[in-house]
């Protein structure tokens, strides 16, 4: 029994089929709990008023936007090293989800920034590097869509993902250098003594968990779809020859 057994598409589909309902239930449960708790049962912040509540969407989506790219990076590495097709397809499946998470983070940030900073957009390092991350997602998806041969596409996009990761990190630091920030530092961290109050902390953690599970569920589902779509195409091609 090893992890690599799940590289077999049949085994992957069978296992994820069993796991998926649980993941969906948990994800929706966590999201509902976290968001409802956050929106209706937490006090308003004394400085920011009710706008603080956007944190329950903004922070988890931003977190998942970065983690989705990280997951794609790992999946790409697995594809390059061990050439498991499921891994390449999972990377492909994660990209649009990550891109949407990036957009959610940017848009909710803009909604929050308008009343708080008085501007929808500011060329702040964090905002800018998120926008650049979004561009990377776009390029990655465009490359997948442009190439017809599946294996070639998987190879090229995985190398693009590796190179892109390096450049995304470079951009992050370059942008930091280029402009001073308006965005506050991390609100949640493990190592700081002073963190935000528990009333905000618990619902936020639950909704982060919810977003994470939602991401897992969506990636599983999309990977299954990719596998089945490829199988259909193979069947059609075989029928065409016969």
């Amino acid at each position, binding site marked *: 029994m090893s992890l690599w057994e799940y590289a077999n598409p049949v085994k992957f589909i069978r296992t994820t089929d069993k796991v998926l309902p649980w993941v969906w239930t948990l994800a929706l449960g966590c999201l509902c709990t976290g968001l409802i708790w956050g929106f209706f049962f937490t006090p308003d912040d004394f400085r920011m008023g009710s706008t603080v509540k956007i944190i329950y969407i903004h922070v988890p989506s931003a977190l998942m936007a970065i983690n989705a790219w990280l997951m794609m990076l790992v999946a790409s590495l697995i594809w390059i090293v061990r050439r498991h097709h499921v891994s390449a397809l999972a990377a492909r499946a994660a990209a649009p989800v990550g891109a949407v998470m990036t957009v959610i983070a940017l848009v909710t940030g803009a909604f929050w920034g308008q009343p708080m900073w008085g501007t929808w957009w500011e060329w702040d390092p964090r905002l800018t590097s998120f926008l650049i991350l979004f561009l990377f997602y776009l390029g990655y998806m465009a490359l997948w869509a442009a190439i017809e041969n599946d294996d070639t596409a998987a190879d090229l996009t995985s190398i693009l993902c590796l190179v892109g990761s390096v450049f995304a990190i470079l951009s992050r630091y370059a*942008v930091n*250098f280029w402009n001073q920030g308006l965005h506050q530092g991390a609100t949640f961290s493990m190592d700081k003594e002073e963190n935000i109050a528990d009333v905000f902390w618990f619902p936020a953690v639950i909704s982060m968990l919810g977003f994470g599970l939602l991401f897992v569920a969506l990636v599983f589902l999309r990977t299954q779809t990719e596998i089945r779509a490829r199988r259909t195409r193979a069947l059609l091609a075989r029928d065409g020859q016969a």
Partner: protein
Amino acid sequence: MIALLLRDLRLAIRAGGGFGLGLAFFLIVTVLVPFGVGPQTDLLSRIAPGILWIGALLACLLSLDRILALDWEDGSLDLLATAPLPMEGIVTIKALAHWITTGLPLVFAAPVLGVLLNLPLAAYQWVLISLAVGTPALSVIGTFGAALTVGLKRGGLLMSLLVLPLYVPTLIFGAEVARRGAEGLTVQTPLMLLAGISFGVMALLPFASAAVLRINLR
């Protein structure tokens, strides 16, 4: 390797268009900017370093598909791939040829176009230096993009989408050097970072480009 370099240079110069096109594009962009933002000289002199950098970057981008596409079409790329020269070497030479035919002329054209934009006197040397240090990075990164999209029918637009985000760090540090130079500030930190990026991509990215090209030639 030298033979390949000379061949590419000769092709670029004689086969029309490629050599002067980048320069002409650079000129057009620089001329269009005052139409867009208005002719106030103080505003122009403030944004001149950035405009020159953007113009150079776009001119570079425009000429990227010539690096590999022509060789791909007539099959000489396949021949090169079977030659004893390693793929990494081929890619490096291609990038070098692109830099000599596009990047280097841009470096020398920038001060001339700076006159049009009322570039501050102190900035001339820094624009020149930052472009000289930064354009090799643009060529090498661009070669990676060209290698990624070489087999595609309409790869040009896709290549811009892929390459432009990769240009961000180079552009930031390059424009920063030019801007600080124009304001008479110290430029050492961004210049060193720009050189770091340039040398870093020169050392590492040819391996990625070669891997990508091998996949595309499969």
